[in-house]
């Protein structure tokens, strides 16, 4: 490919790519996101290739390996276009049938369709799947239709048109104004207005200036940035180049965690292709603007997602946060003005330029514009990534898109905002989700994690889980976070082990206040949130653990025991066989019993019993 040396040639290339594309040709899209790969989508691609070759159909059928479609629960996902037939949980042995029946005869294979759990109705087409129906996938939607390793796929769908428009027709100030008017706020957690951030970096004294992309996504259960990096890397590059032009920078870094090898690989390919096409590097599109992007891999410390720690880490130093001010916009990477935005924020930029701030600001609520990608995980039927307009209620997200709680269990709480977010109870299920509403109820947007919990979740245990994570990931620089979070974990652990004392709850609250007030960075400053919010909304559960030495949800091992119900036990011996401790005894066809001293409360007996004869007490 020859370098594109001017914006007209980019349009010529785009038009020819659109013309080349035969809209009626069958295209089989296979999700190669991390989730679907884990469920075997690579084998599906192989089987597809073999089958197509065997039947000599390569002229008629195109295979497309795409990034994450979002509906990870149902992976591997295969979409057959242009009809849009949606097959889920596809296995390599289904491929021959898909080719023979669906592709060649136009028949639908019933067994591969998605079944709506509530109605039992089978859904044929992708756009009719309830999981997608209520979403507004303006950022994430392209993932399912482009090959992330092929820049031409991205160019075909308007890719890099925002870049050429901005450099050609807009002054840096106009771009910043446009981003400001769109109302875009940082998607990494802080929610700071992006345009304002850009402006303060543009106006800061000092050269050179740096542009950073924070791809150090570390929240447990969150993988939206990962899926964007893997599924549509060019949208992030394009956003960064536009930002660089607006701010006046010629050098950018993407800080991506080592645990995302596929994201790194796709980014490398994307950067190389963008350079080859003249969209990155020296004299971009022949318009006299230079910008390079380097990839910097993080070694896995959660705290390196904090901007000042991230900057030190790129410099090759220990990733400890430092006091702000000075903010990175004034003194950032190598002491120079630096603008840092999260992956999703960057991906929003080309869209704002292409469709305009007016259009963008119509999506969302008064103070939170646009859409947000959430990773919907935990006790939810439709695990996956969803993109919804700001302001959608938790109920719509959890029930309409998420398909509700598995096993007909009751919803208990949803944890938003990553490990240092808060748990939101059922009374707020109709809360519209945006930056400010989440903060009001003691949680936060964070980077967009959403962990759903059912009635069998112990909230003290949940607080312990997040504290364990945070105590482990605290850098240890400042006293309140290092010592304080550790002490909170100590106390909460004692409570779950039946060693809680009456004064523990007030002590936890006292500690929380100090940690929130005095921690050096946001990791510490928000670390007590899981405890504060669970005490606020589920105080009685803490009290049951402390006063009655009882875990109401039946989770905390020290406070529960398994018992066999005499009226239900058939004496089948299944539990006896699986018990690793040989703690169950009983003769065949007679009621069995558990020797409590031997029991390690692993729960395998309860899982095995087919007669619901084992109970947690």
């Amino acid at each position, binding site marked *: 490919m020859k370098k594109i040396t001017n914006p007209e040639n980019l349009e010529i290339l785009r038009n020819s790519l659109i013309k080349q594309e035969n809209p009626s040709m069958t295209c089989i899209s296979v999700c190669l996101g991390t989730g679907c790969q884990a469920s075997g989508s690579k084998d599906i691609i192989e089987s597809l290739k073999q089958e197509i070759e065997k039947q000599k159909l390569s002229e008629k059928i195109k295979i497309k390996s795409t990034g994450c479609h979002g509906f990870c629960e149902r992976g591997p996902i295969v979409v057959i276009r242009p009809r849009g037939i949606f097959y889920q949980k596809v296995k390599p042995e289904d491929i021959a049938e898909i080719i023979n029946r669906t592709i060649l005869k136009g028949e639908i294979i019933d067994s591969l369709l998605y079944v709506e759990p509530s109605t039992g109705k089978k859904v044929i087409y992708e756009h009719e799947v309830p999981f997608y129906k209520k979403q507004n996938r303006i950022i994430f939607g392209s993932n399912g239709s482009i090959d992330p390793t092929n820049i031409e796929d991205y160019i075909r769908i308007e890719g890099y048109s925002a870049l050429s428009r901005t450099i050609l027709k807009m002054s840096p100030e106009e771009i910043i104004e446009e981003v400001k008017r769109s109302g875009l706020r940082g998607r990494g957690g802080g929610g700071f207005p992006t345009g304002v951030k850009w402006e303060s970096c543009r106006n800061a004294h000092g050269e050179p200036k740096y542009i950073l992309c924070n791809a150090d996504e570390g929240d447990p259960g969150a993988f939206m940035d990962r899926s964007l990096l893997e599924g549509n890397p060019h949208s992030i590059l394009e956003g960064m180049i536009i930002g660089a032009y607006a701010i006046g920078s010629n050098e950018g870094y993407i800080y991506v965690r080592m645990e995302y090898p596929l994201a790194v690989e796709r980014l490398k390919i994307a950067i190389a292709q963008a350079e080859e096409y003249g969209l990155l590097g020296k004299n971009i599109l022949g318009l006299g603007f230079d910008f390079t992007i380097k990839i910097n891999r993080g070694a896995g*410390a959660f*705290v390196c997602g904090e901007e000042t720690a991230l900057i030190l880490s790129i410099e090759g130093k*220990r990733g*400890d946060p*430092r*006091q702000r*001010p000075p903010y990175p916009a004034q003194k950032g990477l190598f002491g120079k003005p630096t603008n840092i935005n999260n992956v999703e924020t960057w991906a929003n930029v080309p869209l704002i330029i292409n469709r305009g701030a007016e259009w963008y600001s119509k999506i969302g609520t008064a103070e939170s514009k646009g859409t947000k990608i959430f990773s919907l995980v935990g006790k939810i039927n439709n695990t996956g990534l969803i993109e919804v307009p700001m302001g959608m209620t938790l109920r719509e997200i959890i029930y309409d898109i998420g398909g509700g709680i598995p096993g007909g269990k009751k919803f208990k709480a949803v944890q938003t905002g990553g490990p240092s977010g808060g748990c939101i109870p059922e009374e707020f299920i109709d809360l519209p989700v945006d930056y400010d509403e989440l903060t009001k109820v003691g949680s936060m947007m964070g980077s967009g994690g959403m962990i759903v919990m059912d009635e069998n979740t112990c909230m003290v245990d949940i607080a312990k889980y997040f504290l364990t994570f945070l*105590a*482990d*990931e*605290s*850098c*240890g*620089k*400042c*006293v*309140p976070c*290092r*010592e*304080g*979070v*550790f*002490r909170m974990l*100590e106390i909460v652990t004692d409570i779950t082990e039946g060693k809680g004392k009456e004064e523990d709850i007030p*002590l936890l609250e*006292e*500690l929380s*206040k*100090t940690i929130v*007030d*005095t*921690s*050096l960075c946001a990791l510490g400053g928000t670390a007590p949130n899981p405890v504060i919010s669970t005490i606020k909304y589920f105080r009685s559960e803490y009290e049951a653990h402390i006063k009655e030495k009882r875990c109401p949800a039946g989770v905390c091992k020290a406070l529960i025991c398994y018992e066999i119900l005499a009226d239900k036990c058939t004496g089948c011996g299944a539990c006896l066989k699986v018990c690793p401790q040989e703690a169950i005894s009983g003769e065949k066809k007679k009621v069995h019993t558990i020797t409590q001293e031997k029991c390690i409360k692993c729960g395998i007996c309860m899982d095995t019993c087919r007669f619901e004869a084992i109970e947690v007490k």
Partner: protein
Amino acid sequence: MLRSDPLKITIDGIETEVEKETTILQLAKKLGIEIPTLCHHDAISTYGACRVCTVEVGIPRSGGGKRTRMVTACNYPIRDNGLNINTKSERVLAVRKMILELLLARCPGVKRIQDMAKEYEITESRFPIENPEEECILCGLCTRVCQEIIGKSAISLVGRGFERKVLTPFDEPSEDCIACGACAYVCPTGAIKIVQEDGKLTIKNWKTSRELAKCLECGEYVGSEAVLQYIKERVSLPEDIFKLCEKCRRKKLQKELITTGK
């Protein structure tokens, strides 16, 4: 840089004027207002790790009113006219107490921590003691002095969270450490132990020993050989400084003065 007009601010009810970018701690020292510190040293860059110098500030909003924040006095630069600083508010005292209580649980045997805690009426911590021998509060003064003042970076912080420690690389005897003792000198808790035995100076924490140089006149120890060598390479000083102890140098100088005086 141009000097801007001084800012009018209030600290503990006292109205005063202050140069922009002055830290709250610098201002407080000038006015004789005591703010406790542990990880701060005037000669070393600020770090903001111990948080005992936390104070409450009211920052004026552009639209009127004030926004209250808790900041560390050691590294908070005064930039706003009308800033209201409170170094002893109820909120400040509450967090300071808690921080000292946490530190007392970490280092129960350290006199400086005990004394500071006592000033805030804390004699015992409600938290269990993990290691009664622990003396290091991880203030990072030793690592900063070694890097910034000595220029050696022989020690560094390693590990994360509660497991954080100050160590030499791989906890092995250091090749870079010259046993200058600056780390022990700045340590606020006396956690760094230096012993002098068998003609050697040993910093126990760093498992590092350096030969001691002897005075050519009296045979008294002058200091660590490595330190003398390190200084020699950097500054030009009379040779005597590296060969004689302080006493003998004085004697020699006296002699010379008397001789030349004649």
